[in-house]
Every structure is written in structure tokens, then in C-alpha cells.
């Protein structure tokens, strides 16, 4: 029963391209939504559950994407090796900065992660000998999975969808475990958590590194799917967009992050004004949610509707 929501979601993801084959919104925008979900789910572990804000999450996404792009385009590396190299690099960087950064709290943490994101963005723009500078890097090869070329929208839907579901599954598993409770305890009360034997900084570092690795892998997939990367995709604005996704759905809810990512992926597709006023709209969403629905849209709705189902399930259990 723990994973009922997950199976339902997985079934939906699997059925969509069957019901709507060759639909732009499913196999093209859908894949972007999957990438955003992957990033939001990872960020939610750090921000929603452990309560550590990051305004620089796009940086890890960018590092993963650029390591894949640069090593495959310029040095002809195998994409899988490139992906692993991205993970190793992100693992190193995340471990290096996590301890000093996560000692900070509140605004200070926000500023430090913001600074980190900006630095990485500048590196991507300035190191043009490798990264191609502001123009980006094109000609990134596609992925080949045991001889199976991931070369169509539908195939990318399958690959990204599978990895996305894996992320959701991992996140649900982590939250409902000793380590996941430790994360939430650190958020709830650091002093109580530490006197119960939880290593506060160790716990924060682990989840920071995990969410960075999740972003890096997403970045690598993104680079191969787009066949092109440019620094614009990994700017401070995208970090804010990710935070907005997590907050919109509801902090500390994996499906809240999924929901927020889906909404913010599809909204610009349907609202043309979005293009011009993107940042304004994100700002407004953040403010409105924080003021009126601090627990997020998804979580608030789920709490209203949930009890009806909960009653139903409880009855079911009693009868058997």
C-alpha cells in the first residue's frame, strides 16, 4: 500500500504515449517534464525534507550536462563513461563544498548556494575553449543502450520516463527509512535530532551529495537528448524555477515535487505570456504559495481529498 501512488503514477506514465501516440505534449514536452521532475525530486530531498535551501541546484545539473557534452564532443568519449565522469566530478565538488556551506543557515545558506550557482554559470560561459562559451556546444551524440539507439522522441520518453520513475521510487524509499527519518528530524529540530544520535552535518552532507548526483545524471541525459547545451539552461533563473516547482507542489512531498515540475513545464506551453514574464510569474507563484498555501498546492489538495480514500482503505483492511 505504501507505493500505491507510485504504481498509479507509473501506470499513467506508461499509458500516455499509448493513448496519445506521436503527441507533441507527451513525447516532447513530456520528456522535459521528466527531467524537471528528476531535478525537483532530488532538490526536494534536500530542501523539502532536510530543510536545507539551495538556490544553486541548476549548477550540478549543468556540470553533469557539460561534462557529458564536452567529453563526448571534443574528446569522443563514450557517453556512458562521460556520464560516470560527470557523476564523479559532481561527487567531488559536492563533497568539497557541502560541509562549509551546510554549516550555514537560512539566508546565509541561500546566499552561499546562490553564489556557487553563479560561479559555475560563469565558468560555463567563460571557459569557452572547452564549453563553447555563451553559444553553447552542439553535436552531442545520442545514447546507445546495448545496441538500441535512443534516437526518437518516443525512445527518449521511455528512457527518461524510466529514470524519472526510478528517482521517484528512490525518493519514496529513502523518506520511509532510518536515514529518511533522520533527514526529517534534522529539519524538525536539530538539537533534538543530535541528542538522539543523529550526526547533523553528516546527514546534511549525504543528502546534499545525493541530490547533486541526481541532478548531474539528469544533466547528462538532458545533454544527450537535446544534442546541444548552452549556459542559459543552467543559470540562476533555472535554480529559482526548480525551487518554485518544489514549493508549488509542497515542500516535503515527493509527489508534490512531481506535481510542481509538471505544472511549471506545461504552463509555458499553454500561456504565451509566460515567455515574457517568466521570472515575474515564478516570483508571484512563490509569493502566493508562501502566503496562502505554505504547504503547497498538491499537499493541500491531497490532504482535502486523501481522507476519503484513507477511510476506504482502512475499511478494506479491517474486512480482510
Amino acid at each position, binding site marked *: 500500500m505504501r507505493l500505491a501512488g507510485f504504481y498509479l503514477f507509473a501506470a499513467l506514465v506508461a499509458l500516455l504515449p499509448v493513448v496519445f501516440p506521436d503527441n507533441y505534449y507527451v513525447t516532447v514536452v513530456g520528456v522535459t517534464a521528466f527531467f524537471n521532475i528528476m531535478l525537483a525530486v532530488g532538490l526536494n530531498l534536500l530542501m523539502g525534507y532536510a530543510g536545507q535551501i539551495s538556490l544553486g541546484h541548476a549548477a550540478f545539473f549543468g556540470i553533469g550536462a557539460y561534462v557529458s557534452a564536452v567529453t563526448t564532443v571534443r574528446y569522443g568519449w563514450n557517453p556512458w563513461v562521460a556520464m560516470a565522469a560527470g557523476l564523479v566530478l559532481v561527487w567531488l565538488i559536492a563533497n568539497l563544498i557541502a560541509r562549509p556551506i551546510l554549516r550555514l543557515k537560512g539566508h546565509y545558506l541561500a546566499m552561499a548556494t546562490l553564489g556557487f550557482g553563479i560561479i559555475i554559470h560563469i565558468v560555463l560561459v567563460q571557459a569557452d575553449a572547452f564549453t563553447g562559451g555563451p553559444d553553447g556546444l552542439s553535436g552531442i551524440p545520442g545514447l546507445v543502450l546495448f545496441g538500441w539507439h535512443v534516437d526518437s522522441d518516443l525512445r527518449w520518453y521511455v528512457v527518461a520516463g524510466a529514470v524519472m520513475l526510478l528517482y521517484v521510487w528512490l525518493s519514496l524509499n529513502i523518506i520511509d527509512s*532510518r536515514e529518511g*527519518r533522520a533527514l*526529517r*528530524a534534522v529539519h524538525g529540530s536539530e*538539537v533534538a535530532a*543530535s*541528542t*538522539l544520535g543523529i550526526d547533523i552535518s553528516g546527514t546534511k552532507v549525504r543528502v546534499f551529495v545525493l541530490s547533486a548526483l541526481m541532478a548531474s545524471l539528469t544533466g547528462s541525459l538532458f545533454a544527450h537528448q537535446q544534442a546541444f547545451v548552452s549556459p542559459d539552461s543552467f543559470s540562476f533563473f533555472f535554480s529559482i524555477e526548480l525551487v518554485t516547482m518544489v514549493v508549488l507542489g509542497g515542500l516535503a512531498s515527493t509527489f508534490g515535487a512531481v506535481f510542481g515540475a509538471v505544472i511549471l513545464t506545461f504552463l509555458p506551453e499553454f500561456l504565451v505570456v509566460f515567455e515574457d514574464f517568466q521570472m515575474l510569474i515564478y516570483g508571484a507563484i512563490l509569493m502566493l504559495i508562501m502566503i496562502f498555501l505554505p504547504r503547497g498546492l498538491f499537499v493541500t489538495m491531497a490532504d482535502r481529498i486523501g481522507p476519503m480514500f484513507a477511510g476506504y482503505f482502512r475499511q478494506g483492511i479491517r474486512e480482510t
Partner: protein
Amino acid sequence: MGVLLQVSGLVKAYGGVRAINDLSFDVKKGKVFSVIGPNGAGKTTLFNLLTGVDTPDTGSVNLDGYELVGRPPHRVAACGVSRTFQNLQIFHNMTVIENVMVGCHLRGCSGLWSAALRLPSLLAEERRIRTWADEALAFCGMEDLAQARSSELSYGVLKKLEIARALAAKPRMLLLDEPAAGLNDTETLEMCELIKKISETGVTVLLVEHNMGLVMDVSSWVFVLNYGSCLAQGTPREIQRNPQVIAAYLGGETGIE
């Protein structure tokens, strides 16, 4: 019975204020050791020093051969010290049972990866943790509330929840910071029984409490703190009759008989 905790020469100053001023005392194994004293005497500060939440300027805290000073709180906890807080520190983002399961943290060992992949070893540990947490809840008479959200509970119940959570760690020594503060008469009686019951299981209890009836009822030793120093210590009877204590703290009419 031997000594479990030896405190010697403990000093902690905040700016110019010596909140703890050269304290030395022993706590016997399996007994209820109470620390009383007026507001601002340094009782909570003492608990913070004993649990690693704060570091003393000088002095040592020895738990059965382990030096606790200099260890971060989670390592002190690993030595078998557990506590509750004067101002509640409940994990409001979790259910009651999850709060108590956090208390079992030190009794488990599974990490991030086994959790992510939900390995069989993790599932077995989860079941054990759940059983321990259920036991701790039942011990505190809260088994019906396992699935409740902590935000739905009354103050008195939250006080008990903190104790259940601390007990779930299976501590050798439990520090209770004003467990009866804010409780009504019935709840205070229940708390009194709970403390006795905890002590009967062999856990050494350090108690800070303003309710003298409760202190005199459950304690086997009372330590009177005044401006960070020891004013007197002894059995409850001795303390009740100590003229210095009566003058400085208890006053004429505190209801201790």
C-alpha cells in the same frame, strides 16, 4: 550500587555570567537524581553541558569511564545519554510513531543506499525499529496515538512523546528537563508514575523539576543549584529540612511537607 556519572569542576560562563560555577557531583546508577533551583539557576545549562549541546569552559563529565566533554551531542547520545527539553523539541513534520522511530536511530545501522534500494536487510531493520518504537510508546501509555500527527496532540501528551522518543534509544541515563511543567494535576500524577516506572527498568534518571511534590516523591537524591553553584544536596528528607535551602529557595510555603 556504583556511580554512573561523575561530574567534576564544571564551569560554563556566558559573557560575564557564570551559569555553571565549579560544579562537582556523582550520580548513582539506577537512581532518580533531581536538580532543583530557582529560575536561572543553571539547570538547563547543566543538562546542555552533560549532553554535548553546549561545551563547558572547563571540567569533566565522566559516564562510566567515558569522558563526555568534547564529544558532539550525537556521540554523547551514543554513550547512552538521552534527554527531553524544557521547551518541547518535537519533530512536527512527522507522525507520533515516526518521532519515536527517530529515537531508535542509534539502535539501527542502515544507510542511505540500502534505504534507496530497499534492501532486505533494511526491511528487517525497519521492522525491528517499528517494534521498539511501539514498545516505547506503549510504555508511556500512548499506543493508541501511533499514527497521530504530533501537531494534533495536547501539550501534556507531547511531553510524554518526548519521553517515549528518548526511551526508544534505550539510554542508560535519561535527562528530563521539567517534564511536569504546564501539566494539570492528573497529568502530573501520571508523569510521576511514569518516572518511577522508568527508574524501575534500571535507567538512571536526572530530573529537573519545579514541582516539589513530584521531586520529593520520585527522587532518591536531590541536588540544589543556586546561581550555578551547589547550595546543598542530600536525600529528599534532608533537603526538605535544610534551613539554607528553605531560606534561599523553598521559602516558607512551597507546599513541601
